[in-house]
């Protein structure tokens, strides 16, 4: 079934390398490391002490509705990233029908600080002070609701696709389907997560956190770096975008989703589930494997992920896998969890627009089992019309999207 065509018209983000792509995109191309010492809690009891925190974050309340600033950190990231994305798409409070627009966001943890605050007070038997926060502050759907209310987007119920580290791509897939079905003209799609003691504890107990830097695909990689941020893209029905002369970064031509059903916290070593998602995306996009010009990798820097992901890419692309440049922006930003694939969707759109691929930093020597072209020498220039962006998550969830330079003919 072929539905309406969907284009990407705006990119917004809040990251440890800055707010809005005008600020963080040049830093990504320059190979800037955003990983630093953890400051939001005392990391002393942990084996590793590094993170991709946004230090000294100050929320700027640039919304369209007369509402007070949101309180939750992940919500603030999401709302502010949406403001950047809407502005980038040249959408304002009066130039489109916000009653035909919706919001879908991914997350791993929602607002985990509400749990941490509750537990901190519980120790002192003062938890009644925040007793109502599990109704009013914690539920993840309130992040999407806050974005919808901040910009008056009432076309459908705001919804979260909280599919952990692949959540952003699942949100983008949800938005794609709803535009194709004619349920919305414009969708705010993305993901948001805040740095969390709970998440850090968990990854630390899995032995998955690197103690210095994130080195995707490197022989000496030690793990991932938990991080925070939000990524938002504006997806729009093509005709709607054309009618308002919107800037079009790219067309979203397909997505693929699958589940490994193998392990809760690790991907299948045969890469079959990840490959299945990529194949579904290629099929939906009517693109052959040799039609992909760049791959934005999940590339977390854990020994298992990078090896499994490389295996999956070879499974789909065969020998052609060696010809496709692959890079991981997590080498610079760390792993922003539910925001990661949403940020990477925006980065993929910028790759198409500017013809520049951000590098995989900290990669001196490749793992022999990770032997593809990981763009480790620095940003690379070229023409990249078709980009695949992959994500994998706890629960075995895989999500891939394909963006293609917009052209009038399909």
């Amino acid at each position, binding site marked *: *079934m072929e*539905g309406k065509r969907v284009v990407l018209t705006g990119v917004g983000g809040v990251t440890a390398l800055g707010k809005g792509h005008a600020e963080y995109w040049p830093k990504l191309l320059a190979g800037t490391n955003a990983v630093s010492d953890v400051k939001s809690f005392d990391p002393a*009891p942990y084996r590793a002490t590094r993170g991709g925190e946004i230090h000294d974050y100050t929320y700027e309340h640039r919304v369209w509705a007369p509402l007070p600033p949101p309180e939750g950190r992940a919500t603030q990231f999401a709302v502010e990233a949406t403001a950047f994305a809407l502005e980038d798409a040249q959408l304002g409070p009066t130039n489109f029908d916000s009653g035909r627009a919706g919001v879908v966001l991914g997350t*791993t*943890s929602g607002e985990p600080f509400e*749990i*941490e605050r*509750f*537990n901190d007070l519980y*120790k002192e038997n003062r938890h009644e002070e925040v*007793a*109502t926060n*599990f*109704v*009013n502050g*914690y*539920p993840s*759907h*309130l992040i*999407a*609701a806050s974005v919808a*209310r901040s910009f*008056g987007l*009432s076309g*459908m*119920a*705001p*919804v*979260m*696709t*909280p*599919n*952990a580290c692949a*959540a952003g791509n*699942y949100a983008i897939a*949800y938005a794609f*389907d*709803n535009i194709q*079905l004619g*349920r919305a003209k414009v969708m705010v799609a993305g993901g948001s997560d805040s740095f969390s*003691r*709970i998440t850090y*504890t*968990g*990854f630390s*107990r*899995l032995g998955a956190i690197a103690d210095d830097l994130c080195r995707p695909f490197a022989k000496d990689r030690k793990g991932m770096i938990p991080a925070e941020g939000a990524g938002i893209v504006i997806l729009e029905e093509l005709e709607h975008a054309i009618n308002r002369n919107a800037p079009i970064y790219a067309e979203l031509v397909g997505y693929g989703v*699958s*589940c*490994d*059903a*193998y392990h*809760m*916290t690790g991907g299948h070593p045969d890469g079959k*589930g990840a490959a*299945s998602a990529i194949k579904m995306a290629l099929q939906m996009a009517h693109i052959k494997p040799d039609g992909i010009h760049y791959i934005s990798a999940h590339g977390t820097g854990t020994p298992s992920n990078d090896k499994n992901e490389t295996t999956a890419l070879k499974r789909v692309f065969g020998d052609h896998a060696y010809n496709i440049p692959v890079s991981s922006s997590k080498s610079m930003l760390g792993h922003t969890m539910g925001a990661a694939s949403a940020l990477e969707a925006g980065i993929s759109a910028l790759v198409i627009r500017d013809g520049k691929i951000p590098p995989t930093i900290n990669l001196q020597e490749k793992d022999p089992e990770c032997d593809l072209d990981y763009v480790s020498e620095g940003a690379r220039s070229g023409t990249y019309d078709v980009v695949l962006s992959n994500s994998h998550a*706890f*629960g*075995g*969830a895989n999500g891939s999207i394909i963006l293609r330079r917009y052209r009038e003919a399909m």
Partner: protein
Amino acid sequence: MNKKRTVITGYGFLNALGHEPTAFYEQLFENKAPAIPGHFDTSDFQCRNAFAINDFNGQDYLGDVNLRPLNRIARFSVIAAQEALKHAGWTQEMLLDHDVGLVLGTLYCSLGTITQFDRKALKLGPKYASPLDFANTVINAAAGQTALWHKLRGPNTTIASGAGSGLHAIGYASDLIAQGRTTAMLAGGAEELAYESFLSFEREGLLAQKPDDGIPFSGNSSGFFLGEGAAYVVLEERESALERGATILGEIHGHATGYDLTMGSDKASFYEAQLATLEKAAEVSDRFATDIDCVMASANGGPDDTAEERALAFFLQDSNAAVAAPKAQFGEVLGASGPLSVITALLSLKHQQMPGIPGYVDGSEGLSLTRLSQQAQNVQGDTALINGHSFDGAICSLIMSMETSL
């Protein structure tokens, strides 16, 4: 755009009324009272009861297997999925050959597990936090565990849009099938009762303050009773289901979601958003209000019932549809409420009788429904409307029918 037809080929559930369809249906008419939850203390609360699954032992349903990796909500989900797959005739061998997907709606997922995980690390140090428990702290944990248990390799996503998440999940899954993304999905929701969410609902003043309260659509009801459990329907593309010889129980015609930007605080605005969503659901389903034969309302005895009552009254003004509010029978199960209501609708259409609302008294101010009753009501016809709304403004309405050739 030619959309594929989405049919229901099975269902499964576990809640305070059990996991067996006949017993569940009979209990919908017996008005079981909520009880004191057995797994946390509610003695400090004005509302002490809930539709809890007390004396729960996962091995009673799943056999003598290691259930340590599964927390409470994941066990509910795995059991409900097992019942649904069995009901639809999907064997383990078939699941290995076909990528069946899963969409799970939930509001809180593993809130209890996350809180305990952090509390333990806080008290004893991070090295005492269990990696096994960490796997259950992500919001998609129940969906992941269910896929892992049953080898569901198709699209797997969790949907969180508030108390209507489970109905929203069914609507989304039917969209995926209608668009040809996949041919078979488990769709539903799950929720566990946890001390933290119970505390929050109580302190927010949303829970029933009297043991015999929690009466949907009654103006003097002080609030609702929470419940827990999981429920799934098996959705399949019609031709694919027929090809494998599946029994078709019903068909999803369409759904719509909506949002009230006042988050339900302005009842007039909430009413308008609900009415618009009902009309949209009818439009995408290619049905008129007069085609609706019965309604499973979202009402739970809480403060938002008035807006739904008004919206349904207006929408159904030319219809003879009877209206039930099954949360009177199984409580507000949040993410699992919608799927349980869909199953209640299927059973009610099949038996041509649906449960009443015990203790209901007309609490409306001028625009009341005429098809609400304390008593069981007859259902004539094959089409049902299901509502799944959230107390914070998210709305979902779905239209389905029973397979009449059965």
